[in-house]
């Protein structure tokens, strides 16, 4: 009995590694596309962060460096969340396009191993890309940090990843249910999540109903915690007010994400939408 359990666990871990391996191959094969996309993100981030300098040039008084850091963190978290969502959602859409989707779903790979494998890859790749983006833009604009706590910011980003992966699982089900519109709906979900989370502005400037939604968005706490760590040097204990909601949301989001995906998979198997498209 113990041997069976060990064998099953071993198979799950090998399958989990297979998902990470596959996505690594894909990134390697599309390396120039990835580089182009990275440069586009750098340009996009620069246009956002330059807003602070533009406001100062318009005659308004503000702490430009601080505002640039606030905008930079917003743009970088947007990019990170976008990547996690894209890998979770687009992989299903991509598999449908390539025609491999049926082979993945008929393999003896549990859905948690499948989806968590995609999430693990998304977080690994996302962190590398985010650090590169943050560092490059900060250097290009000459942003200086007076008292940053990078370790604390990393802990907040790591904690937020669980809930981002969980929500990514929920959006990943959309291409299963709606082959034509699913992936686009995922982008809408990502946009809605960030607009209520104070991505470039404080949450309290939004209408009350949006502020209410912001309290259940992990991006709200991720942005607040990372800004506290990098702008004010807050330690892990000082950002615990953002950490614990992130951990609670993560603990809830992953099982909910798995359950939603399972329900979507069952729907797709019932209605015959789990097949090649394109």
């Amino acid at each position, binding site marked *: 009995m113990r041997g069976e359990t060990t064998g099953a666990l*071993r*198979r799950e871990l*090998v*399958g989990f*590694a*297979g*998902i990470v*391996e*596959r996505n690594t*191959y*894909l990134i390697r*094969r*599309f390396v120039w596309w990835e580089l182009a996309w990275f440069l586009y993100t750098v340009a996009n981030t620069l246009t956002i962060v330059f807003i602070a300098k533009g406001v100062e040039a318009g005659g308004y008084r503000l702490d430009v460096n601080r505002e640039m850091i606030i905008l930079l963190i917003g743009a970088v978290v947007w990019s990170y969340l976008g990547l996690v969502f894209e890998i979770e959602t687009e992989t299903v859409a991509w598999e449908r396009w*390539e*025609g*491999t989707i*049926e*082979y*993945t*779903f*008929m*393999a*003896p*790979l*549990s859905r948690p191993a499948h989806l968590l494998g995609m999430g693990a890859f998304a977080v690994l790749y996302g962190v590398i890309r985010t650090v590169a983006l943050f560092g490059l833009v900060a250097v290009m604009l000459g942003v200086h940090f007076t008292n940053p706590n990078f370790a604390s910011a990393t802990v907040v980003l790591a904690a937020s990843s669980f809930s981002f992966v969980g929500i990514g699982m929920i959006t990943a089900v959309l291409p299963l249910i709606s082959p034509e519109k699913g992936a686009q709906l995922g982008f809408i979900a990502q946009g809605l999540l960030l607009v209520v989370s104070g991505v470039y502005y404080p949450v309290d400037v939004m209408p009350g109903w949006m502020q209410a939604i912001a309290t259940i968005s992990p991006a709200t706490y991720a942005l607040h915690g990372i800004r506290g760590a990098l702008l004010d040097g807050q330690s892990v204990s000082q950002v615990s007010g953002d950490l614990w909601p992130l951990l609670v949301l993560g603990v809830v989001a992953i099982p909910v994400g798995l359950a939603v995906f399972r329900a979507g998979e*069952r729907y797709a*198997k*019932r*209605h*015959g939408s*789990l*097949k*090649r498209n394109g």
Partner: protein
Amino acid sequence: MLVPAGRSIVPPGGRVSIEPAVEVCDLRKEFIRRDGSRMRGQGRRRRVPALRDVSFTVDRGECVAILGQNGSGKSTLVRVLSTLLLHDGGSARVFGIDVAAKPRAVQRLVNRVSVEASFFKRMSPDENLSYSARFYGLTPRQTRTAIPEILRRVGFPPERRGEPMEDLSRGMQQKIALARALLTSPVLLLLDEPTTGLDPRSKIEVQELVRDMRRRHDCTILLCTHDMTEAEVLADRVGILHEGVLLALDTPAEVRDRYGAETLEDAFMAATGRSFEDEAEAEVHA
């Protein structure tokens, strides 16, 4: 990793299976289709039966071909058996295991080769085989030796192992598809029109590989095709599936006798009342 002929099938629970490889009983599957416009309030939803009370068994080690036109229900049958579709009624078992109740157990026993090779086209054969083998629990140490060995067996040139799939011919891609299935040592192999669209030489090579798999691996094969010659050459028994109904299932000779036909094609026409030319014409007018 290759399993020698004569092995026993041991499903979860540890007992050696004496069940048929495939046991399908009164299997039903319907799809909902919408007619006309998809605008609000327009277009009528209707139920289209894909499989109507289909019953048959396939014995262990047997090769059964299911003949049918496009839309006859062949692919639906393969998808139900490979756990990709949930059926609406009846039952389907693979080595005694219910496909809907215990899909993971079935998935460990089954693999499939379909009409489209279905790979990540920018990735190489090595990469495609490698990651997909992980889903069946094969470690990098196992695939390091198993992949070159299987590619050699299917006659794939070793120097092309690193090339993107999109640079390979359809015949080559289909050989990789067979290698992918072989790599996981399936005891039930579902072949859904594996040679459709291949040139004559590639077709013969793929058919020879299928024969070889059966000979060397004690593999049970369910072949869905509309190629009568292929069915006659590869299969022990031949079934005719028409509009979701299994009209006949017997040896090729007995199917011919049953319909008083000289060829399997004539028997098919007598059974369905249609020829493949009719079907082609219907598609043109559709």
